[in-house]
């Protein structure tokens, strides 16, 4: 695998290029999956860990301070291995040979926080999809930092109604999230 491929993969991850991501999944997920299945994990664990690994690469690459000195395939494998070992609470991090990965993964708080963030993201989206289409539209605009006036203009509401509507929708979503067992488990 060439440097060009590494660059293409990093660019594809940063730009959310689905075909590149597909290629990465095709080439690297089976290896990660095999490792996780051999180490007390399931297929779902493998997918979650792989997703987390890609996101870890994304965060580093988006900051512009990730220069791969090895093939992407090995790098993502090492990242995922680290994530899984952390998940298993095994203190064997030093066995992963890539110094670059060590450096990133020394920030163990990030690792845990990012894992929780991914779990929240899945849960929030799951609950969000249960809202009415109107509420989803309003909240998308609200979380996109659009003002009540802008929401009113786009939705054909009065400004006052837009304000009431968005908080009503937001509070409904918040209640759904807070009462879900997954959220309570995550926050415990």
């Amino acid at each position: 695998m060439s440097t060009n491929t590494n660059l293409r993969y990093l660019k594809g991850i940063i730009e959310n290029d689905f075909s590149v991501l597909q290629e990465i999944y095709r080439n690297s997920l089976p290896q990660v999956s095999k490792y996780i299945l051999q180490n007390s994990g399931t297929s779902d664990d493998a997918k979650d860990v792989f997703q987390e690994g890609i996101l870890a690469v994304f965060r580093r690459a988006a900051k512009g301070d990730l220069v791969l000195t090895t093939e992407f395939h090995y790098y993502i494998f090492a990242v995922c291995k680290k994530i899984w070992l952390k998940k298993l609470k095994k203190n064997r991090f030093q066995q992963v040979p890539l110094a670059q990965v060590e450096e990133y993964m020394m920030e163990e708080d990030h690792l845990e926080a990012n894992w929780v963030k991914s779990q929240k993201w899945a849960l929030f989206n799951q609950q969000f999809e249960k809202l009415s289409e109107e509420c989803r539209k309003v909240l998308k605009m609200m979380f996109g930092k659009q003002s009540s006036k802008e929401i009113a203009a786009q939705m054909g509401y009065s400004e006052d109604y837009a304000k009431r509507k968005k908080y009503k929708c937001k509070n409904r979503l918040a209640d759904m999230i807070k009462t879900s067992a997954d959220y309570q488990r995550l926050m415990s």
Partner: protein
Amino acid sequence: MGKKEDIDKRIQQFLEGELNPEERQRFEQDAESDEELSREWTLHQDMEELLGESPENALRKSLQQLNAQADLPPPSDPSSSSSRFLWLLLIPVLLLIGWLALRDSSPDSQYKALPPMEDNTAPPKQENTNSPEQEEAPSTDPPIANTPSDTDQPEDPDKAPVKKPKKDPPKKKSQQGTVVDKPSSPPKKPIKAPEILKNGNTKEPPPQGLELKEYANVPISPPPSSDPPPSEQLLAAAFEPIPELDVMIDNPRRSDNIQINPSTLQEDFVREKPGDQLSFRFAGTITARNMILPEGYFTLYLLSNDRTAFEAMQGLVKKPLTLNFVETFTFRFNVQMPLSLTPGLYYYLIEDGEENIWFVDKFTIK
């Protein structure tokens, strides 16, 4: 107003910029010290971060789709390592049994499932009034290598999947091809298969039978000019349909995950003179949801109406489909290749890596 409502109202006022500077400052302090406000404010910030539009969230969405598509093997059985070891011990025994079985069988038995071949130098040994088993009995003729390739090994005819349709509805006209009227009495003689031409029109007939290439750029020749022109009976045989494939044309396999939408189909072709090349053309899109497509997952086959070749999936052409990404889950394919084919009925189909046929159509060469 209860505390919950009070908290919601303070968050709303803060977000709407309705608090004066002192109130804002107090809110920010309380958001750190007041446990309940802190919890609600954190949840709001999380929702804003995780449900808002950001590159990371967009990437998460794509990854979630890919996760849904990924088809990973289930966790292996903990006892698998011991059973694997047992298999290693069994391999020599199985090899020995296989060798003994092969030693006792006829050297030609492996060719049983290959299509019958007309011997150019000798008349047929017997009239074709026997049972199918007898028809396929090994002969002293050399084998027909129907699909030699560097990359795709010829399938073992005994193991090759035989595609059987689930039902047998009445035949209809195909989407594009024309069904030639079935002769009142089906011909008994085996269908004469064409020989291969390499490098355009340079004839290189293999000395021991015919050899058909899988590659699109290798045209398949008409019969050598020294051969007698095909008899009427032979021509009729060449147009004999394969009912199982006709059924699949009319009743394509359906799935929520895989859909094949052809945009250009191969049309019937009329040869002005022997050796005329057909420009085979087949294009469209494949939608594949909830799965990761390995490279070469779909294969295009071009088959004559030779039933034996169909049952062994030994196509005149076997070509992995090149898929180009169009949008999420959708890929475009476009196959164009020159072919020299003798008059007859031909089928082309798309099969996936699990030997499921997803698309069939046919055309005629006249």
